[in-house]
C-alpha cells in the first residue's frame, strides 16, 4: 500500500495562482505549488511571509481572493477547496490541520479531545444522537471503537498515562503532539501542520520527526508542514517551498533549496550582492553547504566589531575568532571528562534536581555522562562546569554533587533500578 503510494507521484494538492489580499495588504501573491501524495512537503520562510495564510486558504478559514486549490483524494475524487466551507473540507475532502498557537480544547480531557475529532462518524453511528440517547447497541460499539482509536493514537504520541487529564494541563510539547493526534483522528488524507516544532526542545523535536515519518509510513497520509526553521525541515521533508512576502522564491528538494542564494538572503537578512559574494566564497572553499556562508559572514562580522573596538591588531583578532574561543564553552573542561559513556549507556542526569534536559545534554557533550563523574567533581571542576553552563553558584547551591553521590550509589546498588530511572 505504502509503496504503491510512493511510486505514484500524483499530486494530492494543487495550488494554482493563489492570491490573498487583506484590504491593501497582499499576503499571498500568485502562488503555485503541488504537494505530492505520500510526501512531506515543507513550507518555509521568515516570519510574516504568509505561510499561515496559505494554510488558512487550504483549510477554508479564509476564502482566497483568487486562485484554485484542488485536493485529490485516494479514491480519485477531486475537491475544489476554495469553494468549500471549512468544516466540509475536513469532513469530505479529508484535510486536517493544526494551529500555530495550539488550539486544544483545554478544559476537555486528552481523551475527549480525540473523541471530539471523531465527531462525524460517531454522529452517524448514534443515529444523529437519537439512537444513542435510546441506548441502541450500535452506538455503544462505535463509542468503544472510538475510544480504542484514541488509545491507539495516545500510545503513538506517548500520552496514554495522561488520557484523563485536562489537555490544558499538559506540557507544551505534549500539547503539540496531542494536536497532531487529534487531527489524525479525523482520518485525513492531507495533514497540514503549522509550526509543529515551535517551542520544542531537541529531544522533542526528534520525537516529532519520528512521529511524522511514522504517520506517513503507516497511514499513507500526505503532510504539508510550515516551519520557521530550516534544520528541522531538512531532516524529514521530501520537498521544500520557500515563501517570502507572499511570493514563492524557491521550490525543490531540501538540497537545492538550501543553497539557493535567494533563500540564504531571506534568512540572513543580507542583501543580494552580499549573497552572491557568499556563494562565490562557498564555491571557492569547496564547501557546498550554507554553513560555509554563515562562517564567512560571522567572521566578517567579528572583524567589523574588532575594528570598531580598534587597538588590537586585526589579524590577531581574526585568528581568535577562527577557533571557537568562547570561554563559556570549553569541551572537556572538567578533569574527569570521558570520550564516551561507559558501556555505551549514560545515566539520566536529569534525575539530579536542577539539571534539566538541556543542561544534561550539554554535560554529555562535554564528556559528563554518569552520576559518579559529577560526584567526583573538585572545586575547579565545579567552576569550569558552572562557567560553561552559565550557572553561577547553582551547582553548589542545589548540591548537584551530593545528589549525584546518592544517585551513583543507588544505581550501583541495584542495577535494575537504573533502567527504570532511565526510562522515565
Amino acid at each position, binding site marked *: 500500500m505504502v509503496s504503491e503510494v510512493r511510486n505514484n507521484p500524483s499530486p494530492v494538492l494543487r495550488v494554482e495562482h493563489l492570491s490573498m489580499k487583506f484590504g491593501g495588504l497582499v499576503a499571498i501573491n500568485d502562488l503555485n505549488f503541488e504537494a505530492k501524495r505520500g510526501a512531506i512537503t515543507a513550507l518555509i520562510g521568515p516570519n510574516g511571509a504568509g505561510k*499561515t495564510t496559505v494554510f*488558512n486558504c487550504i483549510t477554508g*478559514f*479564509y476564502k482566497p481572493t483568487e486562485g484554485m486549490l484542488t485536493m485529490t483524494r485516494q479514491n480519485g475524487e477531486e475537491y475544489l477547496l476554495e469553494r468549500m466551507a471549512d468544516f466540509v473540507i475536513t469532513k469530505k475532502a479529508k484535510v486536517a490541520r493544526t*494551529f500555530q498557537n495550539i488550539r486544544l480544547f483545554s478544559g476537555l480531557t486528552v481523551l475527549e479531545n480525540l473523541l471530539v475529532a471523531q465527531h462525524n462518524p460517531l454522529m452517524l453511528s448514534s443515529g444523529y444522537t437519537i439512537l444513542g440517547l435510546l441506548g441502541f447497541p450500535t452506538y455503544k460499539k462505535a463509542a468503544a471503537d472510538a475510544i480504542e482509536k484514541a488509545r491507539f493514537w495516545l500510545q503513538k504520541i506517548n500520552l496514554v498515562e495522561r488520557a484523563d487529564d485536562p489537555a490544558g494541563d499538559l506540557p507544551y510539547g505534549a500539547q503539540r503532539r496531542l494536536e497532531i493526534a487529534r487531527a489524525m483522528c479525523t482520518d485525513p488524507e492531507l495533514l497540514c501542520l503549522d509550526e509543529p516544532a515551535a517551542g520544542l526542545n531537541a529531544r522533542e523535536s526528534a520525537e516529532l520527526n519520528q512521529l511524522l515519518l511514522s504517520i506517513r509510513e503507516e497511514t499513507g497520509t500526505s503532510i504539508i508542514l510550515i516551519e520557521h526553521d530550516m534544520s528541522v525541515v531538512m531532516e524529514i521533508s521530501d520537498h521544500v517551498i520557500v515563501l517570502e512576502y507572499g511570493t514563492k522564491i524557491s521550490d525543490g528538494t531540501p538540497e537545492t533549496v538550501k543553497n539557493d542564494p535567494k533563500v540564504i538572503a531571506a534568512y540572513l537578512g543580507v542583501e543580494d550582492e552580499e549573497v552572491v559574494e557568499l556563494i562565490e566564497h562557498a564555491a571557492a572553499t569547496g564547501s557546498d553547504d550554507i554553513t560555509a556562508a554563515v562562517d564567512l559572514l560571522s567572521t566578517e562580522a567579528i572583524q567589523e566589531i574588532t575594528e570598531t573596538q580598534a587597538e588590537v591588531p586585526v589579524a590577531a583578532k581574526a585568528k581568535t575568532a577562527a577557533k571557537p574561543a568562547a570561554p563559556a564553552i570549553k569541551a572537556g573542561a572538567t578533569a574527569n571528562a570521558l570520550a564516551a559513556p561507559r558501556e555505551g549507556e549514560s545515566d539520566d542526569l536529569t534525575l539530579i534536581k536542577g539539571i534539566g534536559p538541556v543542561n544534561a545534554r550539554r554535560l554529555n557533550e562535554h564528556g559528563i555522562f554518569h552520576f559518579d563523574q559529577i560526584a567526583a567533581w573538585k572545586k575547579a571542576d565545579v567552576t569550569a562546569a558552572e562557567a560553561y553552563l552559565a550557572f553561577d553558584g547553582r551547582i553548589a547551591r542545589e548540591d548537584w554533587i551530593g545528589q549525584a553521590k546518592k544517585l551513583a550509589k543507588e544505581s550501583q546498588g541495584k542495577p535494575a533500578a537504573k533502567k527504570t530511572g532511565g526510562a522515565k
Partner: protein
Amino acid sequence: MEYFIQQSINGLTLGSIYGLIAIGYTMVYGIIGMINFAHGDVFMLGAFMAMIVFLALTTFIGGVPVVLALLLMMLVAMLLTGLWSWTIERLAYRPLRGSFRLAPLITAIGMSIALSNFVQVTQGPRNKPIPPLVNGGVTIYGTGITIAYKQMVIVIVTAILLAAFWYLVNRTTLGRAQRSCEQDRKMAALLGIDVDKTISMTFVMGAMLAAVAGTLYLMFYGVISFTDGFTPGVKAFTAAVLGGIGSLPGAVVGGLLIGLIEALWSAYFSIDYKDVAAFSILAIVLIFLPSGILGRPEVEKV
C-alpha cells in the same frame, strides 16, 4: 409631509436621550468589553437625583429661574451619579476584571436589580410626578409643525454635550488615554497609562451623560419611577449595538435611529408595536451587518 416632519422631530428628541445613554454603554464596552447592564438603572438614579434636587430647590429656596434650576439639577445629578458609577465599578466590576467573562455580566445584572430595588425601598414604589418645567413651543410659520421648547432644550443640550464630549475624547490627554486603553490596554500600560484610573473615569463619564439624559427625561415626561431604568436602558443598549458597539458616533447614530423608528412606527403603523419594530430592526441589521452600522468588522484570527 408635515406629519412626517413632526414625527421625525419627536423621534429625534427621544433619540437624543437614547444616544446619551448609549454612549455610556458603548464606552464601557469599548474599554473593557463588558455589557454594563446596570447603566440603565444608573440613568434612572440620575433622574431621581435630579427630581430630588428640583424638589429641594422649590422646598428650601422657592422660585428659582427655570434655566438655573435645570442647570443645578443636571450638575448635582451628574456629580453624584458619577460617584455612584465610580463606586459600582470599584466594588462590583474591578475585582472581577480579567477573570471569567460572564462574571461581571452577572454582577452587572445583580447591580441593576439591586439599584432599582434600592430606589424602590428608599423612595417608594409610586410614580414621582413633578410639575412641568418648560412649557410651550413654537409653530413653524406656515405649517402645522410645532416644536416644544422642551424638545429644543433636549436637542440643544445633547448637541452641546456631544461637542464637549467629542473634544474631550479626541483632544485631551484623558481622552487619548481612554482611546489607547480601548485599542490596546496592555500597550497603554506599557506607555505609562494608569489603566485602572482610566477605566474608572470612563464609568464616571458614561454615568454623567446618563445623568443628563435622566434629567432631560424627567423634564420631558415630568414623571419618573424606579422601573424606568429598564426600558430606556435596553433601548439605549440596542442603539449602541445597532450603531456598532464600541463606536461613539455609532452610539449617537443608533440612538437617533431607534428614536426615529419608534416615532415613525407609532405614527404610521401601530403604537403598540413600536418596541417590537425597534428590536426587529436591530435583529435584521445585525444579521446583515454583524458588527452594527459603524462598528468595526470583527476579524476572525485563526
